[in-house]
């Protein structure tokens, strides 16, 4: 089984998404300016969306763009602007001696272990889950209908719980980010 036997478009799509993901992720952890890091994060999120579409997860790709790139990164940018761009966070300075080396060794061990696991084990294929009654998901075309059915029947309780979670998160964020009234008068006095 060689790479030649795969369809050229799918290989091209994979290479595109892999490039977007890896370049964006390296940009997030290496640039100094937080605004540039947020823009690199958008690049990675688009790469993941491409990988989603290539694996026939159309709805999730749309949600990925709308929620992650559209809402979460904008929230990051708002907070960066609110706190001011921090230019004193030097990438080259290493306050703890040996931290980078230890982190690199740990991460390499983790990723190497994962890849070794993948290479040495074989997948359970052909087994259908109980909840989807053995109906395979549509490949090559959209499966929004199946996903909606799963979310609104099998996972209905979890869906409602996430709705409550979002409300609680919004109220909590407002409470956390609100200025105290005493602080405001103190600032006015200064």
């Amino acid at each position, binding site marked *: 089984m060689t790479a030649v036997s795969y369809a050229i478009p799918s290989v091209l799509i994979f290479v595109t998404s892999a490039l977007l993901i*890896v370049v964006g992720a390296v940009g997030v952890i290496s640039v100094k300016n*937080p605004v540039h890091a947020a823009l690199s*994060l958008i690049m990675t999120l688009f790469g993941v969306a491409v990988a989603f579409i290539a*694996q026939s997860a159309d709805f999730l790709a749309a949600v990925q763009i709308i929620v992650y790139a559209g809402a979460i990164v904008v929230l990051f940018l708002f907070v960066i602007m609110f706190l001011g761009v921090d230019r004193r*966070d030097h990438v080259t300075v290493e306050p703890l001696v040996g931290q980078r080396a230890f982190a690199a060794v740990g991460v390499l061990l983790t990723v190497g272990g994962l890849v070794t696991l993948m290479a040495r084990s074989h997948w359970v294929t052909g087994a259908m889950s109980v909840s989807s009654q053995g109906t395979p998901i549509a490949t090559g075309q959209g499966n929004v209908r199946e996903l909606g059915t799963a979310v609104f029947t099998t996972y209905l309780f979890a869906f409602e719980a*996430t709705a409550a979670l979002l409300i609680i*998160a919004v109220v*909590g*964020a407002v409470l*956390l980010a609100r200025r105290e009234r005493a602080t405001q008068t103190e600032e006015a006095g200064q």
Partner: protein
Amino acid sequence: MNVPAAWYLVLAAILFGIGAFGLLTRRSALIMFMCIELMLNAVNLTFVTFSRTLSDIDGQAIVFFVMVVAAAEVTVGLGIVVAVFRRRPSSSVDELSELKG
């Protein structure tokens, strides 16, 4: 023939590794949050890949819920970051040393 699932799984492992390395080494609280998002996306990619491999929609449903919880987590987390770093000159986590004896 589509590319094998292992390619996407290795890609997700690499993305997770990059996110973990950034979380362990960067000092800015905002960058650390972005690295957590990278790791969450790596896990989402793994779920979608297994969903395709096992032809099971449940993997995609779980990714949907992971996205919702990630959105809530980012909202509360950035609220905490704003509340903590409002009065400080930088957003470096090294400044949070009030409990040092």
